[in-house]
């Protein structure tokens, strides 16, 4: 059983004196899928960068064996030649280039004189996509014509074009719908049968449970355990990752639900590129004081567009009538929205949430800076006091509030962004995917905070693609499908199947209601 394809032994990697990896072992057999689990900051990405040659041989200690022989990779190219290909969480495709050009990027089939052999590439690209059971793809069309699910599979095709024997998938389903994730997982199962090995990194443990044969858990740069999946449950993986038992993922606190505080009527958003297409089509809903309203739906259903329009941040043309505490409010910019009492924590933390080079404290006070200023001059003492209090309250782990926020882990960045949007003391808090890319511990803190806020009477609107989260946190769930409201359910007794059925029910006439 020890005929490993790849083996990493006692890997140690230091960054200016800090041990990011401290003696980690990882081994993969041909046709085996190993799930690599750990909280954000546990060292998963660092480990994969060692394996894929991003950190050249010699900058770390330990050894990597390929079929028993040591691999000394000085570049990504070297490790790709050995058959290790990594697929990053953020897809590395050039949107304007064609599918085939992307698949062979850096690896082009050439004819004499460096000319591109398009015929050969198209034929081979089609063969590769057929192997992934992808039909109806025009390999000569630009990648941007295809959705996130397709693009993820193009990445895999690109890896296969490089004769990958070990695929490293880093959070591959983070931007996929559940149907697309399903396709992805079954393709991985097919690849396993063909003898391709995988390392699957994901926070979504049900995916790990489905596709992986073995689980390796690391924590704080140390190897915690490696066991066959059959001996593990998602609960025992979480326990190993966190190092403590999280009894209940959703620390639900009873909170009183009051009167309607916010109402959105006839929200309609038109597509940026295609002005005839409606991304959101006449959605109306209400939220009550102290209520947590979940908005579920497939990726691309129009949920983000809906909440951006409410917050005055939608880039294209849109219409919306908003009422706060019964009086109509005019919101056309985020500035007006915040003044009116709305806050939005956006979906894409890196692009829309943080100002990377500014300090943690400066990020936290960005939305409320004028509160700490007299005649335009910032009172640093007042500012720092607030920052320190908030950092302690939300348990943001940072050495100093002056450290650039980009150096924090995803979970801590998210807490800082959340704090920023809480400081204006909103009556309605909109959270778009509040726990995406966030580790289990921070997730718990964020849920706890949401319940505390609800208990104080804040109305919370939460867009989420994680079904257990929607069901575990919300008091009521709206389901959005293809820009329309497809359902409005109380969360008590609601099942994932019901939500999914509403989200994909093309035939449904008007919103469905739970019996």
């Amino acid at each position, binding site marked *: 059983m020890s005929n490993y394809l790849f083996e990493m032994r006692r890997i140690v990697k230091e960054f200016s004196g800090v041990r990011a990896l401290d003696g980690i072992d990882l081994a993969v057999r041909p046709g085996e899928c190993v799930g690599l689990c750990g909280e954000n900051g546990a060292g998963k990405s660092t480990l994969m960068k060692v394996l894929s040659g991003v950190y050249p041989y010699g900058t770390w200690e330990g050894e990597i064996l390929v079929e028993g022989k040591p691999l000394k990779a000085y570049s990504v190219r070297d490790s790709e030649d050995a058959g290790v290909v990594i697929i990053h969480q953020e897809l590395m495709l050039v949107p304007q280039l064609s599918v085939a050009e992307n698949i062979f990027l850096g690896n082009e089939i050439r004819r004499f004189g460096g000319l591109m052999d398009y015929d050969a590439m198209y034929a081979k690209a089609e063969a590769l996509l057929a192997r992934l059971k992808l039909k109806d793809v025009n390999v000569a069309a630009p990648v941007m014509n295809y959705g996130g699910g397709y693009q993820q599979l193009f990445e895999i095709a690109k890896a296969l074009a490089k004769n990958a024997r070990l695929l490293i998938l880093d959070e591959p389903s983070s931007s996929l719908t559940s149907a697309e994730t399903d396709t992805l997982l079954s393709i991985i199962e097919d690849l396993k049968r063909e003898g391709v090995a995988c390392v699957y990194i994901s926070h979504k443990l049900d995916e790990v449970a489905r596709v992986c044969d073995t689980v390796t858990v690391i924590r704080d740069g140390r190897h915690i355990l490696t066991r066959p999946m059959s001996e593990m449950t998602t609960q025992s993986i979480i326990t190993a990752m966190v190092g403590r038992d999280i009894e209940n993922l959703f620390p639900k606190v009873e909170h009183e639900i009051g009167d309607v505080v916010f109402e959105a009527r006839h929200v309609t958003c038109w597509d940026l590129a295609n002005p005839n297409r409606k991304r959101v089509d006449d959605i109306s809903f209400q939220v009550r004081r102290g209520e947590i309203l979940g908005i579920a739906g497939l990726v691309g259903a129009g949920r983000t567009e809906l909440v951006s329009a409410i917050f005055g941040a939608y880039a294209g043309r849109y219409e919306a009538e908003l009422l706060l505490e019964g009086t109509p409010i005019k919101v056309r*910019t985020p500035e007006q929205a915040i003044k009116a009492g709305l806050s939005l924590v956006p979906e894409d933390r890196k692009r829309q949430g943080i100002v990377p080079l*500014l300090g943690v404290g400066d990020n936290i006070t960005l939305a409320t800076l004028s509160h700490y200023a007299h005649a335009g001059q910032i009172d640093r*003492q007042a500012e720092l006091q607030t920052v320190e209090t908030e950092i302690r309250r939300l348990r943001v782990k940072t050495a100093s509030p002056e450290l650039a926020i980009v150096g924090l882990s995803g979970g801590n960045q998210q807490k800082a962004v959340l704090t920023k949007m809480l400081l204006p003391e909103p009556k309605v808090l909109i959270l778009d995917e509040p726990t995406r890319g966030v580790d289990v511990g921070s997730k718990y803190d964020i849920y706890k905070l949401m319940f505390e806020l609800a208990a104080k009477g804040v109305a919370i609107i939460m867009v989420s693609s994680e079904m257990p989260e929607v069901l575990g946190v919300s008091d009521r769930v709206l389901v959005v499908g293809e820009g329309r409201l497809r359902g409005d359910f109380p969360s008590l007794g609601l099942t994932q199947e019901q939500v999914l059925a509403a989200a994909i029910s093309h035939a449904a006439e008007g919103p469905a209601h739970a019996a």
Partner: protein
Amino acid sequence: MQAQKVQQLFVRYKILALLIAVAIIWVFFHVKTDAAFITPGNLSNLFRQMAITGMLACGMVFVIIAGEIDLSIGSLLGLLGGVVAILTVNEGWGTWPAIGAVLVLGLLLGAFNGFVVTKMRVPSFIVGLGGMLAFRGIVLYITGSSTIAPAPDDLVALGQGFVPVELSRWIGGIIFVAMVAITVRRRMRRSKLGLQQAALWIDIARLVAIGVFIAGFIRMLNDANGIPIPVMILLGLLAVFTYVSTQTVFGRHIYAVGGNMEATRLSGVNVARVKLVVFALMGLMCAFAGIITVARTGSGSPSAGTGGELDAISACFIGGTSMRGGSGTVYGALIGALVMASLDSGMQLMDVDNSWQMIIKGVILVLAVWVDVLSGSNRNA
């Protein structure tokens, strides 16, 4: 380990590395010119030369931090200088009303640039290119392509005069006392809030260095008639711009807009207004620089300020401003301007051929930014 510590020190106190670079350049020229470089007379001239680029750099550093660029400033300087010359020489305006009018005009033209960038959403690079041509065209038109002279004496005094010796001593003393007070107050506040303190010896060393620097600066320039008025204006602008960038809401918003415009917009900041004001300030700085240019030469030349945008942009980048916006300092940009001015002055003293002067300045610009990238302090550039 020691080398790493030194590197960290430089990353943290980038100003040190820049000052050392200036010192090396000065010593080099001093040796090469048989001790003619570090003399009160020459340095007085050097600072006066640097004042105009410095004023432009003050405005430009905000523009670049906000993630934009403005290529029109050389031509705008020429235009505003031309207007002040026409108003005083041809139209018979008094010097002060003319200066006031030109400052307002600069602010408005800058705001117009900002309007085209933010509201009409034309990329600032293109707006700058267009302005570069158009403003130069306007100045050629209104001056009839000829130099307008002679500028009135009170205007010329602004460019060629000196701050009285006694007054500059007082100003130096007040600045030093203020620096001490600020440092003491900051240390007290930080210890009260339990924040990380810079080591005491670093703060003391900093104050001593500042004190020696101010005393030396005033003493030396007083040996040559005193501090030139344009230099005094530049120092005033340095104080104002540093204050704005570090102490005000508007300053913080400039960094935030340049660092991540989308995140800043979603935090409720009116990003268009921030950029508009930044461009308006840039226009105001062009007015300052234009007026001083006319005052120095005693005439309004239609070609004044040609290439000024490149000097100002180079000064910002040598001074460690990030290409991608979001980081940079005003004093860094001014030291960058000092580096450029020192090279100009030294090479002129050495009688280096003009072609070589350009080659060397170009190489130094690229080298300076390369060193900055290597030091890792500017990883985003």
